[in-house]
């Protein structure tokens, strides 16, 4: 059409010189890159499978009701009749309490930071920065804090509640950060629609933003609790290594937890203890799995309402 400005397309003039589309070229770089990605995934996955297989095989003989029906023992002669019941109940107490403490506080903090705080203010930005720093503090440091402040100064001692408070502090930054992500993922348009109808900030948050954020929040909460569940380091300082042959019955009970119990069992030289430890590891993994399934159920339930 145009004679002066636009040059004709290279092959438009002579259709016979147009290259065919059916010449598939091999692109080695493309293939290599895909293989490298698959390999990385395989490494992560293979280790996980190996770990589970190893624990199941080793602990196979002890994967029976004795595991949760019997109390631990220190004597090799009685190990055949021993289990880890006090560690299971201890874990459930501590994690249940941790959830009860860190979820409300963490979600409330996230709501403040996302929905209320004016992040042009320096103190709000400082808060934000420190929450991220806190997430990186080694857990043993929280253990020391718990030992000095909560167990000694406040005087709660080596009890379930001390452990729960310390684990709450430990995972709080994770809960806050995950909850903020979930809140941020709720479209602004939903908030605007609510405000434009004369809703208050609280009504908007409670009736629109929170329900929409629950799926994301529950995922973050479970991640945080899973971390608390597997945590041993701070609890070593907080009395969980004590030999416990009874179930906790109050906030001020002595306790032990599964990771600590596993550690104690593995220290013993006899093979029977090792087997029991492997069985306890499988149990710990099962508890983790149940928790994760709960998170998925919650997520699906709330998504269905839409």
């Amino acid at each position, binding site marked *: 059409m145009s004679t002066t400005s636009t040059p004709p397309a290279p092959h438009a003039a002579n259709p016979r010189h147009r290259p065919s589309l059916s010449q598939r070229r091999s692109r080695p770089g493309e293939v290599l890159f895909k293989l490298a990605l698959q390999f990385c995934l395989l490494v992560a996955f293979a280790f996980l499978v190996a770990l589970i297989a190893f624990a199941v095989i080793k602990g196979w003989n002890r994967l029976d009701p004795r595991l949760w029906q019997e109390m631990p023992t220190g004597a090799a002669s009685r190990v055949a009749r021993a289990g880890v019941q006090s560690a299971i109940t201890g874990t459930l107490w501590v994690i249940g309490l941790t959830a009860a403490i860190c979820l409300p506080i963490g979600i409330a903090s996230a709501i403040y930071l996302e929905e209320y705080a004016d*992040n042009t203010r320096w103190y709000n930005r400082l808060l934000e920065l420190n929450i991220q720093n806190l997430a990186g503090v080694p857990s043993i440091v929280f253990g020391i804090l718990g030992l000095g402040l909560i167990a000694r100064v406040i005087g709660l001692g080596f009890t379930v509640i001390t452990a729960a408070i310390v684990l709450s502090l430990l995972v709080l930054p994770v809960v806050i950060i995950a909850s903020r992500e979930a809140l941020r993922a709720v479209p602004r348009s939903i908030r605007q629609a*609510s*405000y*434009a*109808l*004369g*809703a208050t900030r609280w*009504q908007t948050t409670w009736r*629109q933003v929170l329900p929409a954020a629950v799926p994301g929040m529950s995922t973050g909460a479970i991640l945080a609790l899973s971390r608390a569940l597997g945590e041993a380091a701070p609890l070593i300082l907080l009395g969980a290594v004590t030999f416990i042959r009874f179930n906790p019955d109050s906030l001020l009970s002595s306790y032990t937890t599964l990771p600590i119990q596993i550690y104690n069992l593995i220290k013993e030289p006899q093979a029977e203890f090792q087997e029991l430890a492997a069985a306890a590891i499988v149990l710990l993994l099962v508890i983790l799995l149940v928790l994760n399934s709960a998170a998925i159920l919650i997520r699906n339930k709330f998504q269905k309402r*839409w």
Partner: protein
Amino acid sequence: MSDPNRKAPDVTDTVNSTRPAPPPPVALVNPANRNEGAPRGGDEQVLRLEDVSIFYGDYQAVRGVDMTIGRHQITALIGPSGCGKSTVLRSLNRMNDLIPGARVAGRVTFHGEDLYARDVDPIEVRRRIGMVFQKPNPFPKSIYDNIAYGPRVTGMKVSNMDELVEKALRRAALWDEVKDKLKQSALALSGGQQQRLCIARTIAVSPEVILMDEPCSALDPIATSKIEDLMFELSRDYTIVIVTHNMQQAARVSHRTAFFTAEVDEQGERHGRLIEYDTTNKIFTNPAQKRTEEYITGRFG
């Protein structure tokens, strides 16, 4: 005051009327303005902006706007992107409060009451002056709950919520399409239906004024024409202010049109300014300002 056949007085609120002679009338968008003989609420002023400037932090987004918005009229705000028309719209029900650092200088009055006075409750302002947004934004709830949300949160005394929901949906010309699926998710509706649901939701709290921020820009022409019919219908009972990019739309539906554009000042900063405000007919057939004429004839913007 409310003689239904009375035409709005031809007030020339032209800003910058310093230009010597108005340009000759040009062949413009043909305003098939069906509102010419429409009932009006007379010349009662609902909203009034006096020397309004709007800031985001230190940046002055809109400078020195003066205009009045008449009762039961459709007022269109038009202009190129970035001219501050949406910012002005949001200042009318304090939606700008939600943007950190946003600030309004000058006076915006609603029936003579300063909207930005210290003791004014923005929540109450938004209940009286509702808003419909560019993208349909129904709540992820049922159609019924979308409508009932406003009355519930504002604590309206509703004796029969079902009736209120039906009335709002009928008013928004949506009832026949959704009456059998009120309990279904609003997100399953089409874009045009969603936008009418958003209008119904706004009507449900019985506001006096409805602000619409490009309500049709995400919709196809058929859905757009339905919304336009609806606006026309609603203007009998509500005062409507609409921001639109679509000049034909402004010409079709509005009684009065305000033309905004961005100006660069001595410091090289861009500010939105109101260039001309007049009856839609005047703006589209015989604008007083050269820039208005250039914009509506498509020569810039």
